[in-house]
């Protein structure tokens, strides 16, 4: 135990590591906030010039970027309605309406506090529950991952209120995610025989198109209106708010830590699940969800930051990445001669406790950087739309090209932007499209693995969903969510009657 404490404190006591963690967190906040720049991309680039560094230095910088980046996505979600990262999609739903009411500062302040709280709870989960949670994750079968993906898309599809539009958008995303060579058989899917499409369409390109470009085109409709002046008068949220949402933040952090610990699921699903849970459990919100409910801000932000600690659990104990960024960090550990997996904790426990300490330190820096500099950041949105909209297009072009250095990605981005414009105009949700692109390939692979496991027998395949405890729980959850969108659901019938 004393060794664990000593290793935990390394990043706190070494001035150089302190500086690197702080710099990483600050950079992460701004990288996460710039639409088109992803934390994964920043972490990948960092590997390219930190591979010669000492492992502690490299990890301190990268954990800082990770923690800051997950939080940073919320800033543009609140100020511009453009989520900086998929994990901030749910944050935009209530964050932007709050900003439009002149409460941008309070929204960012509350987001910061709840993000730090979620982050710290995720780290506690990492430190205390790593072995039992990772053994539970190890028990998940392919069909369970398929169900998790379906539940994720269904959840975000139903958030818009129109199930058919949400389902269409989710399926469209899955279809976009299928473009390219099939990873199992190398058959071309929607490639039309062109080499350009064989590598597929990167989800970041779709994200920039559907969120960045579509939003810019929407802004063109009322470009002469005066720029949105977000009032950032109060940044530290009222104590009453902190007390009121404490229990919700705790629950959402728990969801985030567990979801983050499941391999392949990260902050995006955690945030959406927590948002949905908050929407269902909050009986009488002060402001309706979607119109600036603070519950809709607290839940996803606590959850996606808690998912950071959770994502490290399978990475450090099983060698399985919890999400895209931890996959990059696994690469960094391999470069430094370490092998993440069950032996990492027994062979190099100092590294585990160093990372726990480094993540905690990054959250402390997050609190400092999150509550300062907001006014400067908010000035960006005071910039006239006539300047901001062309700038968003230029940044989107850089972001789309930087992913794979492929000029075709820029054209895809523009096409998605135009489609996204029409979808937004006619009230189709675009978030399920992105989730579909991200989760589609994972769901496809797991469906096929599950079917192969059932020896291509559809009856055995279906029976597996009700004869295994984890699958049964997930299947029931999925069916309940599906039924809740039909008139068979009592609450829905009542709501529809009220609407009429």
């Amino acid at each position, binding site marked *: 135990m004393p060794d664990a404490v000593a290793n935990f404190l390394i990043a706190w006591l070494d001035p150089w590591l302190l500086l690197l963690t702080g710099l990483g967190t600050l950079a992460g906040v701004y990288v996460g906030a710039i639409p088109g720049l992803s934390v994964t991309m920043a972490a990948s680039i960092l590997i390219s010039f930190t591979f010669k560094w000492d492992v502690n230095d490299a990890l301190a910088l990268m954990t800082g970027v990770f923690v800051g980046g997950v939080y940073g996505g919320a800033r543009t979600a609140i100020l511009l309605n453009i989520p900086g990262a998929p994990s901030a999609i749910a944050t935009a739903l209530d964050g932007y309406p709050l900003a439009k009411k002149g409460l941008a500062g309070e929204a960012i302040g509350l987001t910061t506090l709840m993000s730090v709280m979620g982050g710290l709870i995720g780290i506690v989960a990492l430190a205390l529950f790593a072995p039992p949670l990772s053994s539970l994750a190890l028990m998940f079968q392919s069909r369970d991952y398929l169900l998790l993906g379906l539940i994720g898309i269904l959840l975000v599809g139903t958030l818009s209120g129109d199930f058919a539009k949400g389902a269409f958008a989710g*399926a469209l995303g899955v279809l976009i995610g299928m473009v390219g060579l*099939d990873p199992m058989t190398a058959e071309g899917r929607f490639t039309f025989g062109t080499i350009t499409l064989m590598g597929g369409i990167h989800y970041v390109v779709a994200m920039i198109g559907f969120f960045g470009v579509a939003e810019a085109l929407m802004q063109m409709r009322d470009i002469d209106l005066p720029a949105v002046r977000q009032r950032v008068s109060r940044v530290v949220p009222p104590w009453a708010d902190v007390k009121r949402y404490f229990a919700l933040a705790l629950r959402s952090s728990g969801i985030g830590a567990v979801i983050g610990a499941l391999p392949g699921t990260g902050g995006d699903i955690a945030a959406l699940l927590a948002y949905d849970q908050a929407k269902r459990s909050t009986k009488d919100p002060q402001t309706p969800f979607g119109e600036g409910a603070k519950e809709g801000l607290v839940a996803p932000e606590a959850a996606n930051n808690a998912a950071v600690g959770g994502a490290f659990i399978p990475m450090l104990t099983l060698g399985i990445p919890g999400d895209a960024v931890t996959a990059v960090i696994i690469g960094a550990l391999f470069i430094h001669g370490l092998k993440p997996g069950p032996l990492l904790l027994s062979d190099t426990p100092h590294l585990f406790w160093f990372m726990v300490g480094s993540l905690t330190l990054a959250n402390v820096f997050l609190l400092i950087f999150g509550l300062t500099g907001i006014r400067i950041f908010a000035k960006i949105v005071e910039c006239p739309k006539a300047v901001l909209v*062309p*700038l968003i*297009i*230029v*940044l989107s*072009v850089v972001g789309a090209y930087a992913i794979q250095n492929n000029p075709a990605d820029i054209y895809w981005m523009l096409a998605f932007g135009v489609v996204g414009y029409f979808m937004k105009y006619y009230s189709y949700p675009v978030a399920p499209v992105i989730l579909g692109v991200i989760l589609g390939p994972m769901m496809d692979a797991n469906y096929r693995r599950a079917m192969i496991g059932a020896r291509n027998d559809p009856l055995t395949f279906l029976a597996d969903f009700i004869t295994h405890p984890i699958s049964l729980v997930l299947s029931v959850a999925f069916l309940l969510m599906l039924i809740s969108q039909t008139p068979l659901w009592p609450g829905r019938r009542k709501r529809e009657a009220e609407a009429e």
Partner: protein
Amino acid sequence: MGELWFAFALLLFAMAALWQAYGISGFSGLTSAGVFPMLAAVTMVVAALSILAATLRRPVEENASVRRFVAQVLPARLIAFLALVVGFLVIMPWAGFMPSAAVFLFTATALLWRRGVIAPTLVTATAMVLIWLTFRLAFQIILPRGVLFPSLF
């Protein structure tokens, strides 16, 4: 009217996607490459039919016309801006990212902002310097190069 046409276009797209998905491997097996794309496309067709039916059930807007649709959904300024974006992307492979982005930024801000020439020039110059410093120098991102100045941009 526009919403109805959009819903109809989505249905057509979904049906075309289903046809393409079927073309991947047909019904050759339950784990073939085309099964999941077909499931996604079928979901799209069913959802698009449901959206179309719901849109048709709604009362038709008064004064619905092509001119009104164009004025509301595709105003001239939006079409002109999209043309500028397309122009930016078309000249980029020839001129490179930096010059084409600078021309696009200047033209778009000058036309939309209507503040003369000096303000858009300053905005463009500042933005391009910041983009170069942030992306090319700090993040070491390769920006698209053109054939006109291959060694520079």
